[in-house]
């Protein structure tokens, strides 16, 4: 294990560029189908509900709740060697999609299934930010 290993930094590809562009500007961008009105995630070319190639990017509310989570102890990638134990969570967004992310701003042992969360963007590399989630205060 290299001590200089860093966490993986995602590289936007053509189809996911609007997602990462939005994140850089602090907006959670998701795909919305103009044919059937459904949201979808992860990023793809066509609506998984109706097959229409009419997905447009819209800003999502960024509000959701903690569906479930795990605390990772096993180091599966050297970039996370100093990060364990860290949480990986599934967040149910109001739009009806379930995102995998991390919950920040809270101790791992304070995480509770069902708690309300809101999106918060974190710098992970030069000009790269990704959506994470933090507890809604109050």
């Amino acid at each position: 294990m290299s001590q200089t290993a860093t966490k993986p930094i995602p590289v936007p590809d053509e189809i996911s560029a609007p997602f990462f562009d939005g994140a850089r500007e602090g907006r959670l961008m998701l795909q919305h189908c103009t044919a059937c009105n459904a949201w979808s995630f992860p990023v793809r070319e066509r609506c998984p509900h109706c097959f229409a190639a009419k997905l447009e990017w819209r800003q999502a509310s960024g509000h959701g709740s903690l569906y479930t989570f795990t605390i990772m102890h096993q180091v599966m990638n050297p970039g996370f060697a100093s990060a364990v134990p860290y949480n990986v969570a599934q967040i149910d967004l109001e739009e009806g999609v379930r995102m995998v992310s991390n919950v920040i701003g809270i101790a791992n042992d304070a995480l509770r299934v069902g708690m309300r969360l809101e999106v918060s963007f974190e710098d992970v590399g030069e000009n790269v930010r990704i959506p994470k989630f933090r507890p809604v205060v109050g």
Partner: protein
Amino acid sequence: MPNQPKGAIVGIGVTPMGKIYGRRSVDFAAEAIALALDDAGLTKNDIDGLLINANIPGDMDVRSQMVLGFENLTLVNVMSAYGSTAGSMMQYACMAIREGLANTIVLVYADAPLTPSRGAGQSYAGPHRFPLGGMTGLRAAYGDFGANPAYAMAARRHMHLYGTTEDHFGIIAVGQRKWAQLSPWAQMKTPMTMEDHHNSRWIAEPLRLLDCCLVSNGAVAVIVTSAERARDLKQPPVNVLGYAQCAPGDNLRTDRHPAVETGAKRSGEIAFRMAGITRDDIGTCQLYDCYTYTVLVTLEDYGFCAKGEGGPFVADGKLAPGGALPTNTGGGQLSGFYMWAFTPLSEAVVQARGQGGARQVARNDYVLVSGNGGILNYHSTLILSRHASG
């Protein structure tokens, strides 16, 4: 003619398993096939079909036929639905035989991900496996690698909804270790207590090391032919009475709840109906056990207990030796060996034949086998029996 067998299993071959280094997957496959042919009393020339279970490294491709030296096959394919594939392969083999496309078909799974410098934890999820583009890179940035996090999250959700505990997972691991001690094929023989389970290190909470399957180098081969031809062969035939799949779909939607219902439910219902039997007829279960949690949720979805009651159901040790529902009697993938659904399938054949020796169950009329792939994304069910009908 109700409930005619779909086909019959007439040979199985299981190589030595575990940290056996310096051999390619296809070499393990060759050894397993030779063992299966010997078990069946057949020769290589009797084989006219070859179905290969694609493995994660991808080194068991269709060209394996040439390395193995099979000639003039009338059926060949590589199949993949991850850990549920053995059930799909059995369906394809039986249908092909009944359709006259081939007479005697080898099904094989082989894998050799372990090297002296790459242990179980890294073997399926090392950094080399994680390209950084787009959504894949996003997952990696969150530290979401391999299958452990998603299964842990399904298990957590189950605990949240139904009060399932670490003890419920532990009793499954402890019971299967007892079975493993009775199986000559099993990798893990050291006794395990509940304390051992609870003291084993976290992998992905709520899953500990002893909740997770092994990783094995090795191979399993299974030979399938028609029920008619099977009667004249060396081993007592094991008839395939029911088979089904269910692939529920993407779990990244808020209307999907993999802790509440997996593909086992629909797949099980179809297979039982096809076999003309009910759960009460099942004497032993051989269930896909990538994690202890998988066993628990599969038992629920097959209807052995009500939804959510899997924990209390297993708590009395009924899956262990001497229990009311002997399950994963070779130690499963937790303590036996990890060959995807070829682990439960091979053990089911042993039990259905009555060749389990010290681990043979008394009620072996009907054996239930499950396969599970992805993150509870693909499910297959087989019902096997020495009887020709349900």
